[in-house]
């Protein structure tokens, strides 16, 4: 079945929101089942996935037409002027509907078809294997084992089936503990540090109210504590501000009473909740989206938004966690309220500081799969994939990526991946193009039969990994460090321009060291290869080695010459848009139609 554009409007103007000149692009706007497409007079295409649309706004009619502002979840903001109000109204209404699907089966992932054969698709879903990952960490072992308590999601439906718990925690203890925890999310293993024999565990808040106790829960914590043979105390980190945790007591929830649990050290770390984070990002975007912004309003807006304060809080918490494990050899139990937002942030960032594996491309995928996807971070609700409660939307995962980005800035050689990798993940967490991030938990994903009906994101990301390699990555350096210890003095935190303005090209450095280095490091590798080959040829090969060096030098010079010639030449890590665009272009039936016209 072919989807023709069901809406086509000519003479639409696209305005650059930051350009100081009032230049605009004239073109035609199409709406397809999956994308909004704008083709300007120079045939340049702008594709916007409906799922990426966060908000559509129709502004007051002007003399040149009716302005339509579309804000996207990947922070693209497009400003159209539609000549006739009626057309504008049609586009507006269609987009409102299209951007907020009512059910999962309307999501792009279910119609996305990259023309890959079935066995390859299935293989793709097996790329990341969490059992392997726990094995890599060194579990099961004499202290930790796989529990079958949740094999059929019977005690916690937002947890995965496979959970690792201390060997000494019996089934009744697990069941009892889960009944004493919000949403049944009892303490389980998130990361095991092989050398220190210390663990990072995660759970939700206890239903302690003002005085309630639960013997099984106390036993559970004790079991976790003694699973670390070297140690006689463990940390319990409540990632919420103390006030919030106290308020929860009135609702029969709350936090651990140090008197009731043997040998715990309790600690609040004060990360704000999803609502505070949502409005913080809102404020940040309002400020950064202002035209002709002064430095002072930018900085005071940045301050008022609180955004960097929150990022710092998350990183500080992760450092506290990682230090407890690496320096004190202590086991840490992390929770917040439900244990799927702040807990995921802190556990995953903490592991990233501790384990060089998570600083590799594959390792990072595993980390997201483990601490975010499998432990039930509610991607669907937090990203607003379906038409639902807007109060559930929150940039929790974006904050995690930003935390990682800040680490890559301070440790340029410690990460195998680059910024483009983080941006691409962010793009697809919201695109609903792949099955990985649909739904809120593993159980829901199984019910949606995602592994049968959709494609996994990871193999696609891995296929393109050349684009995501950090040319400065030094594996030895990364592994040598037992613990990444970032400096979190406030001046280290910067506004992440390449995330929040990734589509505002005038704002970025006009030349990218990164791209150049990437090209050169590839050329160096090629040179080494060529050199080896030539050495095989023997003495006669020397002449051609020189020629080959010259060729490489030429290529090197070329990459550095400004290609556009107008001084606005602009090199930036390509966020794989060209490739994804091409792929999207070929996948959507409309595009087959359009392509046949060309």
């Amino acid at each position, binding site marked *: 079945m072919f989807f023709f554009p069901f809406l086509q409007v000519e003479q639409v103007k696209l305005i650059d929101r930051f350009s100081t000149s009032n230049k605009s692009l004239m073109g035609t706007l199409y709406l397809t089942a999956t994308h909004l497409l704008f083709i300007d007079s120079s045939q340049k295409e702008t594709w916007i996935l409906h799922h990426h649309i966060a908000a559509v706004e129709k502004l007051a009619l002007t003399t040149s037409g009716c302005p339509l502002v579309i804000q996207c979840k990947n922070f693209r903001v497009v400003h159209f002027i539609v000549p006739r109000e009626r057309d504008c109204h049609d586009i507006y209404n269609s987009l409102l509907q299209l951007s907020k699907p009512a059910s999962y089966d309307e999501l792009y992932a279910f119609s996305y078809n990259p023309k890959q054969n079935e066995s390859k698709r299935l293989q793709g879903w097996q790329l990341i294997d969490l059992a392997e990952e726990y094995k890599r960490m060194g579990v099961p072992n004499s202290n930790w084992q796989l529990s079958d308590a949740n094999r059929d999601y019977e005690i916690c439906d937002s947890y995965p089936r496979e959970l690792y718990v201390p060997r000494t925690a019996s089934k009744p203890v697990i069941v009892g503990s889960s009944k004493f925890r919000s949403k049944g999310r009892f303490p389980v293993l998130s990361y095991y540090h092989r050398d220190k024999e210390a663990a990072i565990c995660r759970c939700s808040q206890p239903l302690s109210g003002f005085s309630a106790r639960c013997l099984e829960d106390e036993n559970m914590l004790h079991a976790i504590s003694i699973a670390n043979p070297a140690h006689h105390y463990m940390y319990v980190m409540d990632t919420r501000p103390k006030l919030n945790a106290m308020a929860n007591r009135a609702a029969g929830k709350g936090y651990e009473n140090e008197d009731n649990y043997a040998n715990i050290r309790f600690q609040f770390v004060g990360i704000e909740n999803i609502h505070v984070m949502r409005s913080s990002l809102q404020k940040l975007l309002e400020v950064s989206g202002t035209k002709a912004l002064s430095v002072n309003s930018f900085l005071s807006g940045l301050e008022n938004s609180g955004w960097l304060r929150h990022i710092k809080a998350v990183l500080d918490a992760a450092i506290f966690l990682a230090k407890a494990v690496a320096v004190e050899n202590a086991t840490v139990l992390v929770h917040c309220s439900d244990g799927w937002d702040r807990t995921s942030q802190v556990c995953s960032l903490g592991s990233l500081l501790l384990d060089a594996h998570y600083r590799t491309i594959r390792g990072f995928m595993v980390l997201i799969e483990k601490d975010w996807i499998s432990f039930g971070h509610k991607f669907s609700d937090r990203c607003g994939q379906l038409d639902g409660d807007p109060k559930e939307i929150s940039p929790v995962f974006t904050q995690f990526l930003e935390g990682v980005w800040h680490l890559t800035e301070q440790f340029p050689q410690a990460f195998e991946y680059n910024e483009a990798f983080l941006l691409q993940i962010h793009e697809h967490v919201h695109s609903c193009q792949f099955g990985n991030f649909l739904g809120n938990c593993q159980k829901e994903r199984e019910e949606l039969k995602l592994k049968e009906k959709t494609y996994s994101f990871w193999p696609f990301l891995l296929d393109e990994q050349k684009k995501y390699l950090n040319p400065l990555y030094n594996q030895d350096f990364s592994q040598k460090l037992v613990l990444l210890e970032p400096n979190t*003095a406030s001046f280290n935190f910067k506004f992440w321009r390449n995330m929040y303005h990734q589509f505002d090209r005038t704002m970025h450095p006009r030349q990218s060291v990164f791209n150049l280095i990437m090209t050169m490091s590839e050329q160096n590798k090629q040179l080494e290869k060529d050199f080896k080959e030539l050495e095989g040829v023997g003495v006669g090969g020397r002449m051609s080695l020189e020629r080959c060096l010259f060729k490489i030098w030429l290529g090197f010079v070329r990459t550095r010459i400004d290609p556009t010639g107008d001084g606005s030449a602009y090199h930036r890590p390509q966020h794989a848009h060209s490739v994804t665009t091409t792929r999207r272009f070929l996948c959507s039936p409309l595009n087959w139609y359009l392509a046949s016209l060309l």
Partner: protein
Amino acid sequence: MEFAELIKTAKVENVQLSCPGLPPIKGTLCITSHHLLLSSQPGGHGEQGTVELWLLIRNVDAVEKRIASSLGTITLKCKDLKVLQLEIPGMEECLNIASSTEALSSVDSVMMMYPFFYRPQSMKLKDGWQLYPLQHYYQQIASETSAWRLSCVNGDFTICSSYPLAVIVPATVDDNVLKKAARFRQGGRFPVLSYYHKKNGTVMLRSSQPLIGPNRKRCQEDELLLSAVLDGGERGFIIDTRSAQAAKQARVMGGGTEPKSSYPRWKRLHRPLERGRPLQESFIKLVEACNDTSLSMDRWLSKLESSKWLAHVKGALSTACLAAQCMEREEACILVHGAEGTDTTLLVTALAQVILDPDCRTLTGFQGLLEREWIEAGHPFHFRCAHSAYSHARLKQEAPIFLLFLDCVWQLGHQFPFSLQFNEHLLLVLFEHTYASCYGTFLCNSEKERCLCEVKEKTHSLWSWLNQPSELKKHLNPLYTYNALVIWPSVEPQSLQLWQGLFLRWIRSSQYLDEAWAEIQRLVTNCEDAPEESAGRTLCHSQPDAAYPLTITGTANEG
């Protein structure tokens, strides 16, 4: 005056030196007429007899002392922004060292400064001084057009005390006209050529404000001089670096700005740029904020904002872009001035040239630009850089205009990492040497003063040191390729960054960033050997001779 009179205690044993981020060192402290030296002793971390500190006393901006029983602590806050602590046994010794350092660092007489005493064996006096005269720049212009001439009307500095001996003026205007026009401009700074844009033959002039005064005086010669710049029906732009209101108010004091009626072919644009005390205060506030590592995020951002430093960076870059735009896009000639024409004026003209002219982005070109547009053009370095951000002294004429220029150049380098031939290290060296140096290049306020003090005869030039191959190597950008295009920077606040390499240089460890940079250099030069130190943390300021291993680095003192 004898330096010896100022030195009461010349030598103290068992002094402990500490600096944030480095292990403390114990040693013998000596004070000489120009330097504080600390050589380590056994039992300390350093090797015996190693000179661990070689600090030019001129570099000391503020001395703070604290005495507790018999142990005194002196905190030396340096002009290059580093902070050192000396723990000195003995109250008297401590007080003596502190007062000597204070006295020696505030010697105001130029002829008593270190450059006049500094005689390295490897260098010859006179070298480097004649490298970049304005004449050389004039020859470049003369090869393109005959519309300009070199005038020696200021040959004895009587027409304008802050101009050099020779200036470039329209060929059709004779010296008598210049003399009269000079009387109509503050400080005699009549309009002269600052930059010739080869691409389209437009020029940038600079001057000081016209002395319009309350009675709306006119000067035919000044009008003639300016209209001689414009061909036929051409129009030009005047960029006034004050607000329209400030320019108007200046009339009360005898100044003002060119009225439309007397200069009908010139369109005035006002772009207020901060200078003088507000700029100095901005610098002080920023440094204060950077030095407080315990600030919460909100406090940090609000202090960064209230320092206004980045706003000044944005203002300077935008105005320079405006000037560049007038020439490149509007193909019009421009005149830039503020009030005196020695501060914001030079900031704008120099920056605009870096943006427009690829020749100014090479190492030699940039040195030539500094020589022409800052030193010869009469930026009063001696006044502006007398004190840095820590001084408790009453501020007089201090203002970090040149530092602001360096920051803007750094922003350009940050946005166009392949287009500048020099690197951040050069900018840092220039910053240090404007405030305290063993070279004479940035001494005095004008060419006239430099002549009187015989700076070019009796001191060494910074350039001749910088241009030695071994030094040169450290200041080159390995990513550089010649880029013939104009480099238009983004001036959005999201695109401007705090210059961490300068403002946080002594505050946070840059080990991982330095290593990454070394890796970049390795990849680019494709050689096996790791390159030499980058802009790291060395405590020895401009070491006089290569005979001593003078650097303190984090690794050198371990074990």
